[in-house]
């Protein structure tokens, strides 16, 4: 399901567990999801579980908006984009073909999606 994910926590506390939570939220296996949920709650607490699920859920919204509207990369992202995208395979996404680089002058805006 996940493409280009490495091993370990990637320098993020409980990173591997959070990656598994995100993957389980995409899948349809309720048993897997329940097990990961319990693991997150046990290791990180109920508040973190709620907030982590909330962030992933929000990105399911944002990803649909950006992929569905042809949202172009902002100048700041365009500078970071190519090397980072190649690093984890994002340059092979269909959406990379349709995500142009906006040639706006104003740099430095923040981005998500």
């Amino acid at each position, binding site marked *: 399901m996940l493409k280009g994910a490495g091993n370990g926590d990637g320098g993020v506390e409980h990173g591997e567990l959070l990656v598994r939570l995100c993957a389980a939220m995409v899948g349809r296996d309720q048993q897997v999801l329940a097990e990961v949920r319990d693991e997150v709650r046990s290791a990180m607490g*109920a508040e*973190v*579980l709620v907030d982590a699920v*909330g962030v*992933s859920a929000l990105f399911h*919204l944002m990803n649909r908006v950006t*992929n569905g*509207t042809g949202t172009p990369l902002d100048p700041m992202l365009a500078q970071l984009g190519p090397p980072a995208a190649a690093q984890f395979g994002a340059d092979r996404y269909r959406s990379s073909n349709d995500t142009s680089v906006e040639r706006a002058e104003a740099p430095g805006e*923040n*981005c998500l999606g």
Partner: protein
Amino acid sequence: MTTPLYDTPLPIRAEIGNTQAAAVRHWSAPGTWWTAVERVAIVEEVRRARDADELPPWTAPSSVPGLIGNHHPLPAVAVDVIWRVTNHVTTLTREWYEALVPAALSAGHYVELLSLVAQVNMVDRFADGLGLGRIEVGPAAPGEPARTTPDDAAVTTHWVPTAPSAAAGWRPTDQAGDTGLEPQPDVPNVLKALSLVPPERNIQMALIGSHYVPGGALSDDIGKDVWSLQRTQMELIGAITSAVNECFY
């Protein structure tokens, strides 16, 4: 008095509960282009798509005999968009969009539909992720769609028409004309994406503020914790979810 959205002892923050409640009320209200009855049908169709046996992306559900009822409140093309965006978000392309708009859907109808589908996917994945029952959508509220478009909306940066937006809360630039303020910097492109239908963008902004980073400070506080998460954990979650959905942006 408010009714709790979820029957759970989990510590769901008030910000999350309040904005999800606002979104759910919004779903059953008349929209800008879709009626309240149609919007409720959109919510129900997202849930049907999510829970159904998966179809391949090239199979439109409206082409499958018996899958979509004869008296569905939505046009077949809307049902097909709902299933595609819900179950195959990795396959949305400009070619796909241009085959739909404006031939089968107006840009306003498309943007509002996309927004609703995205919102329902979000709220339902939150509930599913925590093992909670999904929030029921209310009965369709009375009223008519507003059928308005920002005066300065145009196709500029996105596939869809967008209206100019400013960082200090969205407003079309022509409404800031006599304030005496300096022109505001533009906003990230993702926050312009739904500006053709302002109420949809407002809900999007509220949900971002309550579930991700409050106040629109998206990357200038990388070292700080947000809610109960370290910022690095938050960004990892966003990055992994976006990778699964093959979102290049």
